[in-house]
């Protein structure tokens, strides 16, 4: 049995989710980044905010080309455009 990945939110996404780390575990049917985006957008009533292409996804600290599989991932991060320092 595989454990659920940690799901992290950064920047303006934390305003939408109200948290920096997801507390719900995604259903086992969610196997790639596309379905994960949809699942989270539905939870927070994001109106597509999580589907926006400017939001990049990192799987285990590497930004991935999507759709990407998430099965077996330890950590998944939703990254809005970075703002620089």
């Amino acid at each position, binding site marked *: 049995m595989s454990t659920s990945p940690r799901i*992290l939110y*950064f*920047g*303006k996404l934390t*305003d939408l989710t109200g948290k920096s780390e997801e507390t719900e575990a995604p259903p086992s049917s969610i196997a790639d980044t596309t379905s994960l985006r949809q699942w989270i957008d539905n939870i927070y009533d994001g109106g597509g905010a999580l589907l926006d292409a400017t939001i990049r996804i*990192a799987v285990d*600290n590497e930004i991935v080309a999507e759709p990407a599989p998430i099965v077996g991932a330890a950590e998944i*991060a939703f*990254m*809005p*455009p*970075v*703002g*620089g*320092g």
Partner: protein
Amino acid sequence: MITLTDRPFDATEKLAAFTARAGGAGAIISFTGLVRPMSKSGPVSNLFLEAYSPMTENGIRAAHDDAIRRWPLEAAEIVHRIGDMSPGDAIVFVATASTHRRAAFEAADFLMDYLKTDAVFWKKETRANGDEVWIEPRNEDYTDRARWDQTTG
């Protein structure tokens, strides 16, 4: 040398330590960025910077190593604040040391352009009226960074 810190730092002390470390160099350049007290929309009361470790550190390290490859540097150092900051606080310190001045000037400029655009930070301003706004890079920051795409150093 790369440091991310959530504590205030003294840029003067950083420069003294860097100068001691860069013994033998003929030129040292340092840049200190401060939290501006005013944004376009008015006074700023707090700046919050969020990083994603270790991606943030890895990216800065790659830019540091790129600078070392492009210019003949004796040493390079980057210190960046994260977390909550007040206007006037030092937010970033970059120092470079080389035998002659141009390499040190250019490498410091290059590192700052990386830090202002591609570095993995999310930045939120709290305005004096309590509004909180996430900030994205200015177009000018991207134009500055693009200068390095055409040059080989």
